[in-house]
């Protein structure tokens, strides 16, 4: 479930500090049972949701505070959590397959996108904010024209649920992961599937891309029948070659991200507290 915007209005003041700003690796916000997180577009903070609250976490300092008001959030909106890059809109999937596009500051529904059936795994705005990509458990990936409120394209996908989507920084392609246990690359302009990775052996729960577009990080989980422990994989975004494999201590991830300089991977697992920070070799 995504963080409802209105929750932010009732948060109290609090802060945590658990990470040294000059450390290469460690753990951020170790007191929080992280359910979802993403790097903000200002590259200086993270949006983190635990069981009860949404927090803004200073990067790389690690100081956590709840946003004072709803309008505190948009300036550092996190696209991976469903915000538009300018922070003005928020895409919220509903259980019935529709997607509400809300004004982030007020929670007012601007439009409702219908077409998917059932649970939606991911909704992500394109870097220019004009398009929204959505991936459903119904095996469809759709591209929506945000201003018109219409479905511009339904992609012919392999027959698997999509759990995660991320746009390349240039907005020309996007990556999808899910029950197929692979990562696929799609052309936004034509809807063609351009490339597919070899099987990662486990379903792909979370994806993030580095700011230069050269690396992906994929968080996997141990699904029924997989019998392989979950891991966090740093992949070459072009060849999908493994650059780093980090074993997960739990059954899966709830979020992955790159630091703005691309030198660290941030990840949180299903049962663990805080956000782990792993330094990458260059």
């Amino acid at each position, binding site marked *: 479930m995504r963080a409802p915007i209105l929750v932010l209005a009732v948060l109290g003041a609090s802060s945590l500090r658990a990470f040294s700003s000059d450390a290469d690796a460690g753990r951020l916000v170790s007191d929080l049972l992280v359910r979802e997180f993403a790097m903000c577009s200002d590259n200086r903070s993270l949006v983190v949701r635990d069981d009860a609250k949404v927090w803004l976490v200073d990067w790389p300092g690690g100081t956590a505070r709840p946003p004072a008001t709803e309008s505190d959030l948009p300036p550092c909106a996190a696209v991976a959590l469903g915000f538009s890059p300018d922070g003005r809109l928020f895409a919220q999937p509903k*259980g*019935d397959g529709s997607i509400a596009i809300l004004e982030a500051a007020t929670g007012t529904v601007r439009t409702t996108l219908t077409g998917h*059936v*059932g*649970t939606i*795994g991911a909704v992500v705005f394109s870097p220019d904010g004009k398009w929204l990509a959505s991936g459903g*458990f*119904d*095996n469809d990936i759709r591209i929506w024209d945000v201003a018109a409120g219409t479905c511009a394209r339904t992609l012919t996908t392999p*027959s*698997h*649920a999509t*759990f995660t989507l991320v746009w390349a920084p240039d907005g020309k392609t996007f990556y999808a992961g*899910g*029950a197929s*246990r692979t990562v696929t690359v799609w052309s936004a302009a034509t809807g063609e599937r351009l490339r597919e990775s070899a099987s990662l052996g486990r*379903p792909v729960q979370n994806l993030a891309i580095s700011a230069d577009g050269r690396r992906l990080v994929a968080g996997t989980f141990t*699904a*029924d*029948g997989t019998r392989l422990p979950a891991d966090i994989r740093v992949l070459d975004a072009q060849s999908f070659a493994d650059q780093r494999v980090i074993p997960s201590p739990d059954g899966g991830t709830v979020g992955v991200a790159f630091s703005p300089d691309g030198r660290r991977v941030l990840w949180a697992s299903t049962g663990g507290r805080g956000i782990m920070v792993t330094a990458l070799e260059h």
Partner: protein
Amino acid sequence: MPQPLSRRDVLHRCATLGLLLAAPTIPGSIAEAFADAESGRRQPTPPNALGPFYRRGAPDGSDLRGATDSGLPLIVTGAVIDTRGEARPDATVEVWQADHFGHYDIEGYRYRATLAPDAKGGYEFTSVMPGHYPDRVAQHVHYMVKAPGCKPLVTQLYFATDPAFEGDPDHKFSNDPLVQSRELVRPVLLSGDPKDPMARVTFELCLERV
């Protein structure tokens, strides 16, 4: 052919049984039931989560079992109707489930099928009782049902005999937090040779007209 009950018939019968005296204000659900009985209107089957293991394109067929598969044989029958009470032979019914050991086939189509109802909207498939697995409390079979002019129905079938319900599905159905309606938990009839029993379940699918 029996005539449908009129509202007066229903009210008369209730009065005869003392129901109206006991409940001078008719609750909404009873009033709705009267109206439904009169008009032939039906309530749609409650929806339930789609789940991450759906795969489009399951093969046509009604026997989900492999020849040597383990598990208690299961036969599920039912009818596909819509909220006007009309049979929907034009529906497609996709079903998928875990096998006896609680494993979903993600790469292929084991324990997945697309069913075509008969001329009266009836459907039937043969399978095994789905297994339990760590991420879910209750045994279940997934459904996606579509028919022209109707809202797609995504739901799940549960079994009253499931140990997860502790023998009391009326009160314990929410032991699995994903089971949001008692109506989806169906009675199980064990039949056949006691040494080689099979489970029979009926599950009606009512699609909402749009």
